[in-house]
């Protein structure tokens, strides 16, 4: 791996995005609009907004980065630029780290905007530090990037890639504890939710919501999300083949 090549790749991905201001606007503003909507949907029960709002701060970056990365890598595969890059002296790790870095930066901006809006304008009541919220959001974004990269290998078209979103993300969304506490689900579903990374992302957010200090559970949640992201990134790297049939 070479840090110069990783940085060059990240700069290139961001440069591509800069030519697409509409996508950037959608990525940054849609989560804010959703939080705003949610705040007034739960106008009568601010406690519900606190729980769901905090969880969604972790879910938004995951979904956005999943979509963006799966389409971007799929385009890289179908346009022939991936084959060209792999025929050049570029490590697979350089490419993946470049993508993760570029989209990670974007995720920081997105999360900062959403967290700032929720905390200071919508009155989200969080006991812990906003920096910890931001940390979990960033790790979620990384996880989304990793999942997007991985599934793009199994999509033959952008049409299929978009269909992977409900297939990969929705089950996690239903089982992560956003709608009902995980320990109140059917035991089989609870067991499934225990092995899905988004459950830990949401748990981590809830730890920050309720505890002023860094708890052991929070550390575990963060480590699980980070570990899952790295594992899936490695799987994604394995789907990049220099030689193809």
């Amino acid at each position: 791996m070479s840090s110069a090549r990783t940085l060059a790749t990240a700069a290139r991905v961001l440069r591509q995005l800069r030519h697409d201001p509409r996508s950037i606007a959608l990525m940054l503003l849609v989560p804010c609009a959703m939080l705003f909507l949610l705040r007034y949907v739960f106008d009568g029960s601010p406690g519900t907004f606190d729980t769901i709002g905090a969880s969604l701060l972790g879910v938004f970056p995951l979904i956005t980065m999943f979509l963006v990365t799966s389409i971007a890598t799929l385009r890289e595969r179908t346009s022939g630029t991936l084959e060209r890059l792999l025929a050049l002296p570029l490590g697979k790790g350089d490419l993946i780290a470049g993508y993760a870095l570029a989209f990670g930066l974007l995720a920081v901006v997105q999360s900062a905007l959403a967290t700032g809006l929720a905390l200071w304008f919508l009155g989200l009541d969080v006991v812990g530090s906003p920096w910890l919220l931001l940390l979990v959001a960033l790790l979620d974004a990384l996880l989304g990037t990793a999942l997007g990269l991985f599934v793009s290998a199994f999509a033959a078209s952008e049409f299929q890639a978009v269909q992977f979103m409900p297939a990969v993300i929705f089950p996690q969304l239903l089982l992560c504890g956003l709608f009902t506490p995980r320990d109140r689900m059917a035991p089989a579903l609870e067991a499934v939710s225990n092995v899905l990374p988004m459950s830990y992302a949401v748990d981590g957010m809830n730890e920050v919501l309720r505890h002023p200090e860094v708890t052991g559970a929070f550390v575990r949640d963060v480590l699980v999300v980070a570990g899952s992201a790295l594992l899936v990134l490695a799987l994604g790297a394995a789907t990049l083949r220099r030689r193809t049939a």
Partner: protein
Amino acid sequence: MMNYSADGSGDRSEADDTEADDLEATDPATATTPAAITARSLTAVRGARTVLRGLDFTVPAGRITGLLGPSGCGKTTLMRAITGTQAKVGGTLTVLGRPAGDPALRPRIGYVTQAPSVYDDLTVRQNLAYFAAVLLPGRAHRHERRAAVDRAVADVDLTSRADSLAGRLSGGQRSRVSLAVALLGAPELLVLDEPTVGLDPVLRRDLWDLFHRIAADRGTTLLVSSHVMDEAERCHRLLLMREGEILAEDTPEALRRRNDTPTVEEAFLHLVDAAAAREGRRPGTAHNQQDQEPRP
């Protein structure tokens, strides 16, 4: 056709000795030129289909070798084998003194796929700057990179469009951006898959002039595929392919002379008919091959 059906392997033999003195001046691929690519019993399998059927050939260094044949005959698969992007390749394939696909070859080969592979949402210059940074990373080399990018843009005559988005360019211009990317690192071997498809005659002439300049000035070896036979006349040497086999390997002039035809196109048709006639007489050797080769 009949006088060739008696001679099954003659088409692939070395040029006749009687022609040798004449050919010496025009044939650049004599034994004195080292080989850039050597293939022995080269095979490639895609799915259940054998696309390359035991090829033996050499590509001389510093020359333009044309790879010609009908679409679906295995040209792209052969080029992908040479650039190390094709899976399931058998036999021996030596490229610039190393086995094909060796990581050390990556910076030494420029490969241009048939469909332009550039980022449509970057400008011409941004595209080239990124690929240049992959080839020669680091801040210390940024002046070198800028010079390489400027030269590559000028090579393909796109200086006036350097700051346009690649996606806004015409098809021919985009394929020239793709070619410019391959020229960046001044590679020793350029593998170009149908680089002139869909271009107007003026542009085609200009590109062939560029190919000749690159070979003459930089000593670069070029392997250029085409199914337009008039381009064959512009190559130093030709590999004629049909259904995954090499039909002939020679200079355009020798091919015309040996088949007694005024153009390479007719020589090629002559050889194809002769091969088909041989297969017709020996049904056991006929290949039931599909017409279309799947795109990679």
